[in-house]
Structures are given as structure tokens and as C-alpha cells.
């Protein structure tokens, strides 16, 4: 994801992540009650995998955003940075000794978190910042699944965070930004400073 040049590639990866999360949620939340499980599964499949990526696609078409991701750094360096992040999280998690936590979840969650943060700081466009944020959300969701069997309330809170933040960021403001400006790059939102 860190080296993709076209924005559509990012969206396809988001869709893919949504489907993976659907599978992971189905297999790992075995002890939760059925109604709650259905709610979580519906959220992953409808919201994460379909609605949000398609809405971003629609926004890109409507606002005529160019399809280049426009990174600040060359792709080769990005690849090295993201690989380092993943390796560091693996090493870090192997030093943790806790039988309550499945380490796979921990590694996936942390590396998603840092990749998302990296996407936000290394790309020029606002839409790629939003995609970076959604990647972080997916990472957080994986972490919530790790504790989900004992505390389903936390997973439900995570779903609330997902819906709230995505709707707020995408729904209201990106629409407005598109109305104001025909070329929504992050570069024009640079007037407020000291």
C-alpha cells in the first residue's frame, strides 16, 4: 500500500481489508452472542468493505481529483520504511510475554497503525490522508477483536468510532471541500499559520 501510485489501488486495498476483517471477525469472535456478532459482521462487510470505499470512489469522480497519489518520498524509500515498521513490530511483540493476547493480532494492529500514520504524513492529497486514517481504523478494529470475546462492549464502541469518524470526515466535510474547490489537494489548505 505504501508504494501504490494510483488512488484506485488504495481503494481496492481498503475493500480487500474490509473482507479480511469480515473473515477474522467471524472466526475469532466465537463466544459472543449471535445478535452482536451479526451486527459486527454487517458493519465490516457493508460499511468497511463496500460503503466507504465506494463513497471515496464517487468523491474522486465527482471532484475530478487526479488519480496520482503524489507521495513526498520516492517509493523505494517508502517500501523500506514500511518494511522496517513491520519488522520492528514483530520484534517488539516477540518480547511481550502475555498469554492473554494473540500476538498475530498485536503485530497486525500495530503495523497497520504505523503504516496509516506514515501514509498521512507522506502524501500530499487530503483524500490519501483520509485513506490513511481508515487504515488506522482497520488496525484498531483488529486490536479490538483480540479482546472481543471477553468484552464485546469494546468492539461495539469500536464500531461506533468507525461510523462516527468516517461519517464526520467523509460525509460532511469532504463534500463541502469539493463544493468550495475544484481541486481538493492538501496544498490549498495552508493559510492558517503563524
Amino acid at each position, binding site marked *: 500500500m505504501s508504494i501504490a501510485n494510483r488512488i484506485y489501488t488504495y481503494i481496492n486495498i481498503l475493500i480487500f481489508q474490509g473482507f479480511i476483517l469480515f473473515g477474522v471477525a467471524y472466526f475469532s469472535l466465537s463466544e459472543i452472542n449471535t445478535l452482536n456478532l451479526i451486527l459486527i459482521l454487517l458493519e465490516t462487510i457493508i460499511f468497511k468493505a463496500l460503503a466507504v470505499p465506494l463513497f471515496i470512489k464517487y468523491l474522486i469522480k465527482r471532484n475530478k481529483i487526479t488519480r496520482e497519489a503524489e507521495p513526498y518520498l520516492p517509493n523505494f524509500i517508502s517500501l523500506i520504511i514500511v518494511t522496517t515498521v513491520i519488522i520492528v513490530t514483530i520484534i517488539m511483540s516477540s518480547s511481550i510475554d502475555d498469554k492473554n493476547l494473540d500476538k498475530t493480532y498485536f503485530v497486525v494492529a500495530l503495523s497497520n497503525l504505523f503504516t496509516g500514520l506514515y501514509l498521512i504524513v507522506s502524501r500530499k492529497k487530503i483524500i490519501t*490522508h483520509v485513506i490513511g*486514517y481508515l487504515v488506522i*481504523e482497520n488496525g*484498531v478494529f483488529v*486490536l479490538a477483536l483480540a479482546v472481543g470475546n471477553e468484552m464485546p462492549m469494546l468492539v461495539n464502541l469500536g464500531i461506533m468510532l468507525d461510523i462516527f469518524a468516517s461519517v464526520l470526515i467523509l460525509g460532511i*466535510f469532504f463534500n*463541502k*471541500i469539493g463544493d468550495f474547490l475544484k481541486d481538493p489537494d492538501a496544498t490549498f489548505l495552508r493559510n*492558517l499559520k503563524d
Partner: protein
Amino acid sequence: MIATFLIGTLLISTLLFFNKNTILNYVLVIGYTILLWILGFYEYNHINTIELEYFKPDALGVLLLFVMCIVSIPAFYHSYRYLSTHDETPRSRGIFFASMVMLISACSMAYISNHIAVTWIFVEITTLSASALIYHHRNIRALEGVWKYVFICALSISFIYIGILFLSLAMKQAGIEDMSFDSIMEHYDLLNLFWLKLSFLFIFTGFTAKIGLVPMYTAGIDAKDKAPAPAGALLSSVLMNMGFVGIYRVYAVVSHTQIQHWASVIIIISALLSIFVATVYMTRIKNIKRMFAYSSIEHMGIVMLGLAVGGIGVYAAILHIILHTFVKTSLFFQFNQIYRVYQSKSIYDVGHYFKYNKAGAIVILLGFISATAMPPSGLFISEFLIFQSLFEAHYFLILIVVLILLTMIIWGFGSNIFKLLFTPPMNINESRIPKINPIDSVSQYILLAMAVYLAYNPPAEFVNLIQEAVKLIQ
């Protein structure tokens, strides 16, 4: 009572949102203020009783709730003055008041909630309502401010959520199911320290967006600059207090464990960097409203130093945050009148304020003395106590650095304020300057006087409440 308050808030803000009638708008806002005061007194009389399972008004919550009650009255009054001078449509007025009511209610509930997840939900609601206030003017600059605010706050609430997840892992080993602050406090010695560390780190980082500390302070500055001044006053006082409550409750748990020293080092680093950032901007800033916002960052840094060092510092931190609320809101309320006189926020366009608005100029002068903690001001007492605690804990180097930075802040703040008050302005058309009614400054005088009164002659009940709140940590 809390259920009544929540239902009342929802009802009033919905009605405000759809209502177009001016009289009904007045009635609804006054009704809401009365409801808020009733809540304040009710919770004061039912201190430390659990309500609705998730709420428990403790001393800190009740204190800040009262501060909120006091500040809400001038905030609504100045909002009316603001809207009446800006030719607002009934629709934009309705949205403004509805979101202000939501913001005040969400902050109040976050003060007295006893469950970390419930606090988190109300933090989300403040983001939503604050963004509606920031975007009030519907122009490109406001859009930029609100976009940055929403994005950073969305990141920050994700961070708090990760922190809550780690906290649940820390509790899992000990077999604790209940995530209320009371139950975590009770079992603090059973928590897994590794997860508690990670959890504190993430929750602290998340709340810095609300309280206004390094690393996430940036969004708040733009937000206070672009929001209408009465809303900016709330953002830089009661909303920051909410961030303080969040950090305070988590730190209260951590302070009983072995990682207390580690956590205090984290807080001190963040506080020092915040004061440093505030100094850098305060010495070269030319926008009056942003200058007030950076001054808040500096005060939050001082508050956090007091909290981290402990001893008398914790008492002083709580006192400081209450006094700061009164001082900073009065400066922001006064800013509206400055803008009406000069039609500009830039320091280059203002001057001779004493000539155009005497009552307001005295407020600015007194506010400057208060905000820089010079002796007659109440903040002097709390700041002095914080420095004393730094001295007693042998943090001499930090003390010296902070004192030097504060001196530079006073210089930067002072040179701008004296330019505003005494130097003649360039190219000003005196015939266009409106006459400002001195009554608009009365509330600021009362707020500033309260800051002095509470510091030098505090009522016994006020001191008791603060001491009760300090007991959470020691």
C-alpha cells in the same frame, strides 16, 4: 437528575435547531441555563453517589461543573451580542446555539462520568459539536480550521480508544471485568504494568488534543482562531478542562502503581515542550486571537507540571485550571469588542484602545496582568505554588528553564498588549468606529474579580472540594 438533564439537552437542542422564532430562542437558552444550574446544585448535594450506573459526581467533577455553570451565562450573553452584530439568519443562529448547548452538556457529562468508555463517548460528542461551532462562518478559512480540527480529533479519539483496549488487557490478567474508574482504582495493585504503561501513553496522547499540549495541540489553535469568539472562549476553557479531567483520572490510577515516576516524566516532557512551543509563537505572533490561544497552551503546560511533580503541585494545578478558565474566557469575550472597533485581528491594525473603549481597555489590561500571573492576579498564587512544588521536588533545572520561558512569554504578550492599548494605530477611519456599550464588559470584570477572590480568600467549601479531589492522587 442526569437522565432528566440529558433528555432536556436533547429536547432543547433539537428545538433550537428547528426553531426560527427569536423569543422562543431566548426562552430555550434561558431554560437550558437554569437546567444546567439545577444540575450543578443537585450534583453538589449528591456528591459521590452513583447515578445511572455510569456517572458519579466526585469533588473534581462537581468543581468543574460549577465553573461550567458560571461561565455558561456570559458565554450565552456574548453569543447573543455576537450574533446581533453579524446579521445572522435564524437558521445559522439555531445551529450555533444548538451546538453550543450540546458542547456544554457533553463537557459536563464527561466531568462527572465514572466510566472511561462513557467519558470517551462524550469526548466524541464534543468534537462533533465544536466542529459545528468552528464552521459557523461557512467560508474557506473556517473550512480549513474545521477540517484540521476534525481530522486531528478523529485521530486523538482513535488513540484514546487504543488506550482503553490496552487498559482492558491490563485488567484481564487480574480478572477485573468492570471498567469504571472506581473498580480500576480499587484493584490498581493487580494491573499488568506493561499494558498499563502502553495504555497511559495512548490515552495521554489522545487527550492532548483536547487539553492542548504537545503533540496534538495544533488543531485547537486553528479552531479557536476561526470559531466565533464566545465559542472560542468555551473551546479554550471548559473543553480544555475536560481534557484535564480525562488525564487526571487515568493518572490517578497510574500514580498508585510503580510506574508513577515513568508517567510523571512523560507528562513533564510534554508540558515543557508545550511551554516552549507557546514561547516560540507568543514572541512573534501578530494575531491577537491566536495569541490568547497560545497563552492557554502555556497555562496547560504549567498545570501539567504541577500535576506531575505532586505534593502541593496537584492542589495548585486544580486551582490553576479553575482560575485560568475565568481569566481566559474574559479575554476571549473582550476580543469581540476589539474586533468590532478595528475590524481586524492583526496587531498591525490596532492601537489606542483606551481612546475608543475605556471599559474594554481596562479589561484587557487586567486580563493581561491576570494571564501573565503578576501579583494582584489569582493565577500568581497557583503558579507560585507550582514553582514551590518544583523546588521542593528538586527539579531545579526544569524550574529555571520554565522561568526563563515565562519571562519571554510575558515580553511577547506585553509588547502586543501595550501596542493594542497605547500606540496610535495606522490608517484608521475614526468616523466608522462604533460606540461600545460599557455594559458588555461587566461580565468580564466579574469573572476577573472571581479569579482574584477565589485565590486570595477562598471559601472553606471550595478548598475542601479541591483537597477532596487531590486525595485521588495521594
